[in-house]
């Protein structure tokens, strides 16, 4: 079952966690800050503020590069997924358009295969993508579609249209494979460790900055923590393109159905 199926107070659990995160951050940072001030650790650690500041700048700079790199990669990947879907849909539309050149019996068959495929992708396959799954039925319908061309009697009469249709068919299968293969591609565990441990280290280091105003110091740490945690959660969300708050919907597939003439009746 997809995690998005869990709902609490009218919102999905991942969405709820994301909305609650800033409040948790404020509370945790404030709590740690009060403890450290009580123990006078901050005052003692702040004696070598100059050297310490330089170390933090290097650390934070390095971390920012890594975090920025992760965001760019997953963002690009997310965009690529949308592009792949768009190419798959366009190829299906081309197949449907070209089918209008065939006799009605073949046209009905092609249309029915496309219709069945689109329905299966939207209703069955899409919820499975987040777990790297796919619909075997959708794959079987695509194979059946190929047989329409290979088994067509008198196909030499339509050779040009069949050639173009087969090129589009290959585009559909290629982009479908990309969509499925990339659905279970995830950011490497080592990179996650760098992002999370690095983030914690940067946040902890900032507790020991020499800031006169306690309230302002607390505010700086809170904002920094929020920015880092939001950036990490953004990486997580973009890394799961078929679930969560920024998930890709199969809306483009519906476009095919709207332009299709109903030949069954």
């Amino acid at each position, binding site marked *: 079952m997809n995690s998005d199926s869990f709902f609490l107070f009218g919102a999905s659990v991942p969405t709820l966690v994301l909305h609650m995160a800033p409040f948790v951050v404020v509370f945790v940072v404030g709590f740690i800050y009060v403890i450290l001030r009580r123990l006078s650790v901050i005052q003692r650690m702040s004696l070598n503020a100059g050297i310490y500041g330089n170390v933090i700048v290097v650390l934070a700079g390095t971390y920012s590069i890594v975090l920025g790199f992760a965001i760019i990669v997953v963002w690009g990947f997310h965009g690529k997924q949308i592009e792949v879907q768009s190419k798959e849909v366009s190829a299906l539309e081309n197949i449907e358009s070209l089918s209008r050149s065939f006799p009605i019996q073949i046209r009905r068959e092609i249309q029915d295969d496309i219709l*069945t495929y689109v329905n299966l992708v939207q209703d069955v396959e899409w919820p499975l993508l987040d777990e790297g799954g796919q619909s075997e039925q959708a794959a079987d319908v695509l194979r059946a579609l190929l047989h329409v061309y290979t088994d067509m009697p008198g196909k030499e009469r339509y050779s040009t249209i069949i050639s173009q249709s087969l090129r589009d068919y290959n585009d559909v299968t290629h982009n479908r494979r990309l969509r499925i293969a990339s659905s279970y591609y995830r950011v490497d565990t080592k990179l996650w460790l760098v992002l999370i441990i690095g983030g914690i280290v940067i946040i902890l280091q900032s507790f020991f900055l020499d800031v006169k105003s306690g309230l302002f110091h607390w505010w700086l740490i809170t904002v920094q923590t929020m920015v880092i945690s939001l950036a990490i959660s953004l990486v997580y969300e973009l890394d799961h393109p078929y679930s969560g708050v920024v998930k890709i919907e199969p809306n483009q597939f519906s476009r095919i159905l709207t332009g299709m003439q109903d030949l069954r009746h």
Partner: protein
Amino acid sequence: MLSLKSKSKTLIGVGLFVLFQFLANSSNSDLKADTVKVGVLNSFTGTMAISEPAVADATLLAIRQINAEGGVLGKRIEPIIADGESSPDVFAEQAQRLITEEGVKVIFGGWTSASRKKMIPVFEKLNHLLVYPVQYEGLEQSRNIIYLGAAPNQQIIPAIKWAIDHGRTRFYLIGSDYVFPRAANEIVRDYVEYLGGKIIGESYIPLGHDVPQEVIQNIVDVIDRGNHTDMIVNTINGDTNFDLFQKLRENDVGSVDVPTMSFSLSENELRQINSRAIGWNLEGDYAAWNYFQSLSSEANNKFVKQYQDAFGSDRVTSDPIESAYSGVYLWKNAVIAAGSFEPERVLVWFGHQSFFAPQGKIYIDNVNHHTWKRARIGRINSNQQFEIVWESEFLIHPVPFPYSRSRRSWEELLKKMYVNWGSSWAFNPPALQN
């Protein structure tokens, strides 16, 4: 002492409580009883008694297994068995009785399309559920029926294509005179012509009747024995098959020169033909199904063993038998998904079910309530079993209305048949008319 007003309020309160309890009990009565009734409706008498009792056995085997595992939603399944007597009218009457008098939650059964078509109005009117296990002619789609057998594009059409691919381009169509063979042969005609073949003759025999000699003579006259280009497409149902093959062999029409492709002849009918200790057999002829007993898989070996352990080592399994068995498990899964035995709710969930059947994984199509399955062609061997000579490389999406004509056109064809047969789904010979 309570005032009159207070007494009235108390009485109304008690009354409402009793009413709520009654309503609650009646709505949950299914869940409170220890058993749930299901109907098993097949022909145990008449011409179809050659085929249908074995299907009922498979249904009962699955029910027995499910009960042994604890039942469904904590209830044992209680089968109520009814005889359709090979008569469409009796099937409709029994379906009505099972639903309204026995209170069954589903009916497993039916075989001929004539009987199924007579039952459809009953199921649609009562919004009930029929799980139908046999391949059929298609041209139909009812929300209240789960079609476990092959649609035309999963049996008839692949078989014709396979035959033409193997050089058989001239076809003689012979069938029983009712809706399945007539409609199936219309589909065969469309596809033979589409693929460049030719229909060389067509004959129909009333259900349960012997094949007239003139039909055999007609076949003998038109077939070309020498060129290996002819094939007989057989859609005869019931024990007329015995008579057909006997007369074909007597007239020297054999499987080497002019093989037969049958659409309703399975291992079960072969066993019964063979048991008559005759001097001929059907070796070399073909049949198209989705399942054969000879299918090599662990799941199928287990199923065959269970069936033979239950009903005798001389018994065989067949496509309708396997479908009937799988149908009970699919229903069970749909009931569990729905959390209810009510047909209306089970129907909603049936379209989402899949099952690892003896033939392999099958799915119920959510749109048309037919089953996704592989097509297979078998050649009869000397053991009266099928050697699988071809199977589709993928599960075939069921298409009840073949693409060669529009849905309206197919429906008009059926309507015409029904009217021509005097509001019946089978030809009723004058001698049998009341």
